[in-house]
């Protein structure tokens, strides 16, 4: 009897383990295959595996079009994330510190773009731009990324404003500090971990974003658009190499963001 229930428990545990492994496999196996075949010594990134070699990474870095696209992506990512962060932070500060009529309505409108698909954002901007006779450019891509990322930055900042922090800002004002001084010397330093984490998240999303970047750019393109262009010519270990580079970069940034947010939580607990 005892042995039977023990065996049953074990088999349930085994099934659970199997299920967990299947989940992780489903998520990570494609990434592992992608990374593995970026080291393929051959023209096709399909089994059997030969190698390893760093040849394709060399090819990527020698490809001026790809390197330029990487630079563009970096520029758009940093610029749009900074702007998203400043706008989101100021909006969150204003809503947290001042009693406004229709506050929840304003908040609703601010986070609404989160629910709108990137396709709609990109198409809407494209229609607006052609109506205003503005040619597609990196600037438009950057603006679309601000539209996409500002709600996220706003939501992350808004969650951090507390009554305690409000009183600390009040104390700074009481001692004679002006509003810009309070913001720069008290509010921003106190929220630094959140702000850095929000910036990294925005940057990651911008770095990855394809749809609106594809719709809104013409000659200068971002990395996802360039990768898409290469993929149209068929599979090639070079695409695996770019994919791996992007993947490792994003993972590093995500880990930094996670560490900062987690540390913040531990401090406030």
């Amino acid at each position: 009897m005892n042995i039977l229930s023990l065996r049953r428990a074990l088999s349930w545990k085994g099934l659970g383990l199997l299920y967990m492994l299947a989940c992780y496999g489903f998520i990570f196996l494609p990434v592992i295959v992608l990374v593995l075949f970026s080291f393929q010594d051959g023209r096709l990134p399909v089994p059997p595996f030969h190698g390893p070699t760093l040849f394709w990474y060399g090819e990527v870095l020698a490809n001026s079009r790809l390197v330029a696209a990487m630079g563009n992506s970096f520029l758009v990512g940093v610029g749009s994330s900074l702007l998203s962060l400043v706008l989101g932070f100021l909006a969150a500060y204003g809503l947290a510190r001042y009693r406004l009529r229709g506050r929840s309505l304003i908040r609703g409108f601010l986070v609404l773009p989160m629910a709108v698909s990137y396709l709609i954002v990109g198409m809407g901007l494209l229609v607006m731009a052609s109506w205003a006779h503005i040619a597609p450019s990196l600037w438009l891509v950057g603006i679309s990324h601000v539209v996409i990322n500002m709600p996220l930055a706003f939501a992350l900042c808004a969650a951090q404003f507390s009554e305690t922090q409000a009183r600390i800002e009040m104390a700074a004002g009481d001692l004679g500090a002006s509003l810009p001084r309070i913001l720069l010397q008290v509010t921003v330093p106190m929220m630094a971990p959140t702000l850095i984490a929000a910036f990294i998240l925005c940057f990651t999303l911008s770095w990855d974003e394809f749809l609106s970047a594809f719709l809104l750019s013409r000659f200068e393109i971002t990395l996802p658009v360039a990768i898409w262009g290469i993929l149209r010519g068929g599979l090639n270990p070079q695409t695996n190499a770019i994919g791996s580079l992007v993947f490792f970069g994003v993972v590093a940034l995500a880990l930094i963001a996670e560490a900062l947010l987690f540390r913040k939580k531990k401090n406030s607990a």
Partner: protein
Amino acid sequence: MTVTPLPHLCIEKIVKRYPGQMALDHVSLSVERGSYVVLLGPSGSGKTTLLSIIGGFTMPEGGAIRIGGEDVTAFPPSRRPTTTVFQDYALFPHMTVATNVGFGLKMKPMSPQERKQRVQDMLRLVGLEQQRDRAIQALSGGQRQRVALARALAVDPEILLLDEPLGALDLALRRQVQEELRRLQRQMNRTFIHVTHDQEEAMALADLVVVMSHGRIEDVGTPRRVYLRPASRFTATFMGESTQITGRVAHRAGDVLTLETAFGTIEGIAAPNPGAVGDMPSSSTVLQKDDEAVAIIRPENFTFNPENKQSLPTATVMEMIFQGNYVRILALTDAGQELVLCLPPQQAPTVGTRIVPCCSVDDVVIVPA
């Protein structure tokens, strides 16, 4: 020619409403320069709102605040010559002790050397020189309290506002910080306005106690006067324990009233006007024959020696609580009147004993019911 000194702080008919509640109902108060004022009252009495209005954090709906003769009602906190020590201290968590204390000085026209010196002086004043480079998180509650104090005093405010600053400290530390506050206030000769709900704290610190209830000032005076000769029944109750005997005024001869009660008459001194100064102020003329009134007797004013005293009816000791330096006795007269007495331990009767408590006419204060 003599110039009558202007009051340092003048609160004129301040009105503040919160939804469904009158937070402050035409409150007026004058404060002399260099005095330690304690606003005392239960929660919801409006004391914290009043402090917040003096500091400029809350806007009143009516009335004016004058500091040194200047109307500051419309000024934001940064333009007022006041600083506040917040209840939770509101220290800057990302700065060291010294940068916290020096924060307000950055807005002053001073050289870095002067600023450094000032920070050093303030830290010495509160005894935190050793902790100057430590993080706020590394400090104890009492140390944080002193950083908040040093930070607020560093900018040399004319008036320091303290919002229940001792609430988060344990009893021993509270006593110690009380003494320090009193020493600092004398040393710097600044006006301090301190909010608390603790009447012992108020008596230990204040030059002037302002007793508040339901958005009004019930009584203003020295701790001694407010305790021994309260102007109202609320003040008497809030300032400490007392025996309260209700009755009707039978006779008035100058300041001495004769009160007709359920068990006979009792004589006492009529209460002063709220705000009366001096320890033995003249009595109010509010109470007249046939008015409803209450006789207030502090527990330590009872004896069992009837010489030159009036006797109360015989009572039975119901409960005896040993408190170290005195014994607290709860007794009940045959007519059902409760009495509270404090006696030295060696004089204390045992439970069940029949006693005849006595008190002198001077120790009975008669307040309006």
